[in-house]
């Protein structure tokens, strides 16, 4: 049942079936056209695809994948800590804490990640190398996004919880750490996992500063075998599988943790945090 249409009657069922057949035909036509085009351009020859079943090349990809996952994991770990610090900082009672936290979070959220990476790379690359330039860039950007998530998550905890805690005589620190954060975690976890997907995708930006990683490994392969199209498709496939696994984890967390019907949710779209009550 959808808001857009009624349960179909016999006539509509027939119409839908015809539309379904037409869709299948159109999709098949597109598929055939793509396959014919690729065949005409010699894309199905073994020299384009053989590298991806050759153990030494698979090792290059795995090595790249290892670096990519490593960069993503370190960046996420740093950004969760940074996000917690700045997110709570934005909720502080003290202006001297709140305003700097606000400035840092808003600035790094509004700046394109690639720009940040170029900047860090140009200033510190001699000392820290390209991989760490990427990791620090990712950590700063995702940290500021997660700060917003933490703030929104804490704010999404029903107000009565904090009021009850205050009336028991708890101090603000206790209220935040004992009462609000544990409940906020349930609300935020799906958003945090989906931000992990974003971070994993963004590790591909390391390509532009030649940081080791999956996309860079792809470059090594296509420079040798001149199979850019095939390599791009293989890279796509690897990223899609990885991200789908993470998405499954996110929806599992959502199902397990969603406390009650109608509880608030926090969602991230392109670094912007949207709270739904």
């Amino acid at each position, binding site marked *: *049942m*959808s*808001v*857009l*249409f*009624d349960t*179909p009657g016999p006539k*509509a069922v027939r119409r*839908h079936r015809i*539309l*379904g057949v037409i*869709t*299948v035909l159109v*999709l098949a036509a597109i598929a055939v056209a793509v396959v014919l*085009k*690729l065949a005409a*351009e010699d*894309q199905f020859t073994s020299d384009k695809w053989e590298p991806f079943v050759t153990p030494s090349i698979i090792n290059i990809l795995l090595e790249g994948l290892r670096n990519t996952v490593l960069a993503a994991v370190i960046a996420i770990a740093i950004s969760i800590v940074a996000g917690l610090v700045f997110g709570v900082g934005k909720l502080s009672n003290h202006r001297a804490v709140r305003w700097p936290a606000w400035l840092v979070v808003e*600035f790094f959220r*509004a*700046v*394109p*990640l*690639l*720009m940040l990476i*170029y*900047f860090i790379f*140009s*200033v510190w690359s001699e000392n820290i190398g390209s991989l760490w330039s990427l990791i620090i860039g990712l950590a700063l950007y995702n940290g500021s996004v997660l700060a917003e998530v933490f703030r929104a998550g804490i704010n999404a905890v029903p107000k009565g919880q904090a009021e009850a805690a205050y009336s028991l005589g708890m101090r603000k620190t206790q209220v935040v750490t004992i009462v609000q954060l544990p409940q906020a975690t349930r609300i935020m976890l799906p958003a945090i996992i989906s931000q992990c*997907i974003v971070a994993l*995708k*963004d*590790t*591909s*930006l390391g*390509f*532009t500063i030649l940081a080791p990683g999956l*996309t860079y490994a*792809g470059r090594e392969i*296509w420079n040798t075998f001149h*199979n*850019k*199209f095939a390599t*791009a*498709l293989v*890279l*796509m496939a690897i*990223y*899609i599988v990885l*991200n*789908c696994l993470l*998405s499954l984890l996110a929806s599992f967390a959502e199902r397990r943790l969603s406390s009650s019907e109608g509880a608030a949710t926090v969602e991230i*779209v*392109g*670094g*912007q945090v*949207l709270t739904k009550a």
Partner: protein
Amino acid sequence: MDALTENFDAILSGFWLTLRLLVVSGVGALIIGTLFAALRMSPVPIMRWAAKTYVVVFRNTPLLVLIILTYYGLPEINIRFSFFTMVSMAMMIYTATFVSEALRSGVNAIPVGQAEAARSIGMPFGLTMTQVVLPQAFRAVVPPMASVFIALTKNTSLAAGFGIAEATFRLKGLLNDYATERITIFVGIAIGYIIIVEVISFGAARLERRWRVS
């Protein structure tokens, strides 16, 4: 400040390209995204399935890899466009998935009772859509759609890695040329991006207010 004042024209022309990328891929993404959102919510299962596959595939691919596919991959199979077209094509395909998801969540946010009520007082499908469902859907869609375009603004910077002289490309050049003024350059160009982002969120806030139910 010399780095910024001496190269003001170059930076400005960089942002002009950034804006062109944003508008071209934004409009393209809106059109493709709306199409796929319609397919995604159609009563025909195979259409829903096709649209869902599109979203899953291109949403989970990094934009950079998509650009590699269009920028390096397409010429290999003798499909050639200008660099600008190939890069914005990737951005369109990528952003369209987010547009489609935003539209879908907007329509899904409307209670089924609204359409049922409209139909039960005798409104035909067209009126139900234009008078009841879509006005509410647009309102629900504004905040996520603004986020999608803000993300696109930031994503246009990826074109810098592919020889398109937009703002981030200029930043990269200036960072090399003026080693002593890197922070000024960084903050200066960042402010340019922040202005674009703020204009989008300001526009979204205006729209939201105008369409609010009083």
